[in-house]
């Protein structure tokens, strides 16, 4: 399986589709523990990403993800903008000059992206943020390498999202709620599930293609 800028486009288009469909779900999750804008933020950002990348051709994965990251940074705002933006900028830095990447290379790039999120947000796993989805996913990607089963990815992301429900938020707006944050899913973890699900779907398409 190899992943190129065309795959990247598919990924972003799929992500945007989900985000537009689930805008209200994300907003409702954020209304419960935050300020109710996460759906709007994601919808604005990924729509703009799709608008941008649609018109352009990309030499390599680096320039592609850099465009994605910069677009998110300059259109999303809030907490999720810098975090998702940083993640894609880190992917870009790792994949600079590569026309395509295989699973182990992608895994390493995601690992750098996760570090970027954690550095920017100063959050750890367990703080009830998107890190609670990203960290186990990255660990899994690194561990499985070429052996990755895409269904595992989607299932794991979903599982980890569910687990945020019982967490007491330490970072982000939900932290202001203290114990009252327990019992609610983290909105950024939910949008991260969409992101990895869209990613898994693209991988699955590629693998199916290769096998046929």
């Amino acid at each position, binding site marked *: 399986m190899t992943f190129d800028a065309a795959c990247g486009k598919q990924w972003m288009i799929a992500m945007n589709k989900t985000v537009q469909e689930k805008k209200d779900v994300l*907003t409702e999750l954020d*209304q419960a*523990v*935050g*300020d*109710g*804008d996460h*759906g*709007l*933020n994601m919808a*604005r950002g990924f729509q703009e990403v799709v608008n941008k990348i649609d018109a352009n051709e990309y030499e390599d994965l680096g320039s592609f993800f850099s465009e994605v990251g910069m677009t998110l*940074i*300059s*259109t*999303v*705002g*809030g*907490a*999720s*903008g*810098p*975090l998702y933006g940083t993640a894609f900028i880190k992917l870009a830095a790792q994949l600079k000059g590569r026309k395509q990447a295989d699973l182990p290379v992608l895994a390493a790039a995601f690992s750098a992206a996760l570090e970027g999120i954690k550095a*920017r*947000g100063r959050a750890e796993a367990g703080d009830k943020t998107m890190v609670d989805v990203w960290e186990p996913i990255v660990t899994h990607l690194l561990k499985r390498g070429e052996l990755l089963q895409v269904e595992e990815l989607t299932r794991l992301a979903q599982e980890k999202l569910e687990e945020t429900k019982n967490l007491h938020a*330490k*970072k*982000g*707006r939900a*932290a*202001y*709620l*203290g114990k*009252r944050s327990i019992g609610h899913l983290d909105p950024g973890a939910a949008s991260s599930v969409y992101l990895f699900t869209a990613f898994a779907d693209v991988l699955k398409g590629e693998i199916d293609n290769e096998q046929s």
Partner: protein
Amino acid sequence: MKKLINDPNQVVKEMLEGIVAAHPRRLKQLPGTSVLVRSDAPVEGKVGLVSGGGSGHEPSHAGYVGPGMLDAAVSGEVFTSPTPDQIFAAIKAVDSGKGVLLIIKNYTGDVMNFEMAAELAEAEGIAVAKVIVNDDVAVEDSTYTTGRRGIAGTVFVHKIAGAAAEQGASLEEVEAVANKVIANVKSMGMALTPCTVPAAGKPGFELGANEMEIGMGIHGEPGIEKTEIKTAEDIAAALCGKVLADLDIKEKEKTAVMINGLGATPLMELYIVYKKVAALLAENKVEVHDTFVGEYMTSLEMAGCSVTILRLDEQLTLLLEVPADTLVWK
């Protein structure tokens, strides 16, 4: 949702156009951005002050742009931190070579976006300092968490740091006095009704006909607890009590007090709240040097208020008294 708007997704853009149309001598908009700067920016020989955050808190922040307060206000979408490119544009527009102070309210999003903007500015050789306002005592203070939110006390930071900058203080001095205000200002709020982000189309939370939320933030984020509605006196006592305790104020100390309306609360009610706050301060033998009652940092059309107390020393008193010339604070 009943709002005087055209398109829920264009409210910030249209508001900014309205502000500039209304006050062309005071404010100008940086083309293609959501940044409003004082019309004579950059001011030679003066540290630039940039503040901002999500929209929906009007008159914050554009209402404080002008001589003696801010040089620029950056507006994000409603309740959403502005992006680094916008903040960076503001920094460049107000830097006269003496450096720029960013006044940031302590929300993860604001902190990260302003930090990224500061990194961009520093990369271009602009001296940037940041202060982070965290006056909301409703939130547990802890180094393990995000810490406390910045709410209405931010306006005192604008005022006092702005006065220092106007008097020619260096970036370090302006930063230091801003941090002094931050160390000495505490607030707490409450809400009677929720508010609706235009693009979301429905209220951010619910309150029963007889309920209020104590410790409410300024974004419709839930507060400390929902309780039955109490009298203005009980509410004033609850808010003021927690603020005073946290400030650990002593007899004869001098303060400035702000009773801030969150958007839909009549001035009449804010003064009724202040009546009790004044009585409590008198009981505690705390001196009130000046009082500000009105809408300074709102939360769209939320009904409710916050109480802010700032401990004043001589330096802060003098700087608070320097006239400013902004839309709201003169």
